[in-house]
């Protein structure tokens, strides 16, 4: 959402609209995470009055979608692809292959056994 997006581009690497959107979601989630955790704690604490817990549930469910961690999707840093992204390289399979063959990933080489 545009109200969350930073006015100036603050990421490098491959840029497209989906990457920017995902990055925005990540930042918003980071900002609101303590609030979310506090509400979740209230909801799960059975020793609190029922009314308070229901209120907290309502609060949590009315928070903006961008504050939700499930909105975040790992995307390839070099190609913006959202499928088959390897977490420890942050690359999707094809970009990984290209970079590995070019020798840009330390220690990675063609295997044969």
């Amino acid at each position, binding site marked *: *959402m545009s*109200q969350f997006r930073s006015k100036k581009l603050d990421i490098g690497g491959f840029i497209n609209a989906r990457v920017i959107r995902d990055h925005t979601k990540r930042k918003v989630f980071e900002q609101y995470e*303590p*609030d979310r955790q*506090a509400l979740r704690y*209230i909801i799960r604490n059975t020793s*609190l009055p029922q009314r*308070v817990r229901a*209120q*907290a549930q309502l*609060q949590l469910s*009315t*928070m*903006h979608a961008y504050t939700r961690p499930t909105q975040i999707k790992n995307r390839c840093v070099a190609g913006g692809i959202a499928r088959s992204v*390897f977490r420890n390289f942050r690359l999707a*399979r*094809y970009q*990984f*292959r290209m970079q*590995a063959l070019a020798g840009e*990933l*330390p*220690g*990675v*080489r*063609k*295997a*044969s*056994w």
Partner: protein
Amino acid sequence: MSFISPYSCLLRATRSLQLATASRTLSSSSRFRIVADAKFPVVPSSNDKLQPLTQSQRPVESPVKADGNSSVETPVKEWANRLTDINFNTRLPRSVQALYLRPLRRKAEYGLPVCDLQLRSYSVRNLEFFADFAIRAAYYLKLPVSGPVPLPKITERWTFIRSNFVHKKSKENFERITTRRLIQIKDGNPQAVQAWLAFLRKHAFYGIGMKANVWEYESLDVGKNMDDTLPAVEKNLEPHLSRFGRQQTETSPTQKPLSDFLGNERLSLKKGPLVKVRSV
């Protein structure tokens, strides 16, 4: 407990290391020279290769001189002669000589482990070299050391589809093998151990990650010591802990009850469109 990433310590290999390797190659060749001298005399001219074999075992005489002007006394020594002089009459410093031998070690008195250093790398060459360096450094810091123990390799393999689109059947395999070495310091002074670790970090070799587990031993009155140091620690921590779990932006340090938090407008305001109750 932090890995120094192999990428970040690019070529911070020290001058001293390079010096060491340089002197190693230099004098290893000279050593070879000594061996060669013992067997055959050094041949200054490339013309007659067979001749020196038949001559005497002394490397001093060059065949050219023996043929022609042997009677003339030359004030300047022959090149080969000078070399043998250097080889026989001088020696390298002991510390440099030690580089050709296995690293020296101190004997552990009690065998109490103090520090575990794990080295990781994708290339065995660098790893072996740096492990050797670490052990030598430990010797000069008077730290008893055990290792390097080769830990099991970590092999990661990935299979990818070759193309970026369809063609599922054509695939390619990649692997990354991490080799590891464990170096353990036994009953060393904690400060010496810290100095050793700092030295290794300073002279970190490219492409090698290091992880150290350091154990510290206390006397039996741990609780008493902790109690003694508590006021100072609390005083230091106070400014941090007073704002523990607060929003960075929030300025008022007053405690607010839960109902206030839930009724807080800040939570409900910044939610964008479709938040306001529709007034129909």
